[in-house]
């Protein structure tokens, strides 16, 4: 996946393509199986966080809901393209896990903190699209999760969390093209 080789074979004048080519330099120098490890992390999160959201819909208290509301407000106030909001996004997911009142979900997320940040960075920053669009989509997905937890609908909470994480995983897939040669 060497940069020059990519440049020759993918002479597509897309900004997405440009970024991918340039990315090969640091991808080689960072964790060797990244971004596939970022995607594995999303897959794993789909299982545990889907279940955490379903449990949260059954067990949430008014104070859990206030925490979630406050985090959604903080996420909405971020300036797209300037503030990436990794910490706030992580805190939102942690707050859903806390609302399940099951410490094992919370511990799992805390122990994955840095892996989760890596995956989120791919999902929250843009390659060739308006960063505001990506962030706006993520914010509305969080709102759907919140609504399901708020209304105590465990099935919907599971579905919304799973589909949110699946979309985030898919939105990292432009990195795959860096391997296409």
């Amino acid at each position: 996946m060497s940069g020059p080789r990519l440049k020759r074979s993918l002479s597509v004048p897309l900004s997405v393509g440009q970024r991918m080519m340039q990315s090969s330099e640091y991808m080689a120098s960072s964790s060797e199986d990244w971004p596939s490890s970022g995607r594995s992390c999303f897959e794993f999160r789909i299982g545990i966080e889907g279940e955490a959201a379903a449990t949260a819909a059954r067990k949430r208290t008014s104070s859990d809901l206030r925490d979630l509301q406050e985090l959604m407000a903080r996420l909405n106030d971020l300036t797209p393209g300037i503030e990436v909001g990794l910490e706030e996004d992580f805190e939102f997911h942690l707050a859903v896990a806390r609302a399940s009142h099951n410490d094992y979900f919370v511990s799992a997320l805390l122990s994955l903190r840095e892996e989760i940040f890596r995956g989120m960075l791919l999902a929250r920053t843009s390659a060739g699209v308006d960063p505001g669009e990506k962030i706006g989509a993520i914010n509305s997905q969080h709102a759907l999760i919140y609504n399901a937890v708020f209304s105590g609908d465990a099935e919907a909470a599971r579905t919304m969390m799973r589909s949110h994480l699946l979309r985030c995983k898919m939105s990292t897939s432009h990195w795959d093209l860096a391997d296409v040669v």
Partner: protein
Amino acid sequence: MLKEGLSVVLERGRSLADIAYEEMIGLIRSGAWPPGARLPSEAELCRRFGMSRPILRQALARLRREGLIQSRQGSGSFVIGTADREEPDRAAAPQPSFPAIASLGDLSSFMVFREGVEAEAAAMAALRRTDAQIADLRAAAARLRVGASRKDLSEHDYAFHLAIARASGNPFSANTISSLRDHLMLGLGLIWNFAGGRRDFHEQVLSQHEAIIGAIERGDADAARQAMRDHLQWSRLWLLDGSSSR
């Protein structure tokens, strides 16, 4: 600049890149560069540390290798890790270790957590399993059929669940089930102690394991997820409620 750099190397046996690396670690630890923060541009950092771009890049590469920052061309570098940052409220925060199972309530929570991990692992296994992994699963399931002592039964049951987590091809699933062995064994030990002598229980577990393997072998991810979820829910109710045993 060069002279200053040389004197640093001579006096302290470190390179300029080491100095920049250490200063940036300091900024991350102090919280001046919190997780999620974007680092200043390379040009700005070169000015700040008074060094050339190749040297600065060595320092950034080391931070990346150590998992403290992640870079994206076009977007810049971002703080990912917190190093061993000494911030009072973070130091006081609980370590991300798994709580021990200290009550039946904990055991129930842990079994719900297992549903989250293992139902998805079974679904992923259905999509990715190799023939060799199917053979492993069948062998593990067969050992549970003939398990002699109750201790053996727990061990064989654990081995079956670990084999599925491994067949998922997802390192997080496999690591979770292998590193939480003691947690799983506590629940499995209890359930096989209670029910190991009951033929109906034993048969039910074997047929549920069979259903999971069958769905994985057919490559039916949804059925595999559901079969694992049903199996774990049934076990949880059997152990904690007794309701599904009747």
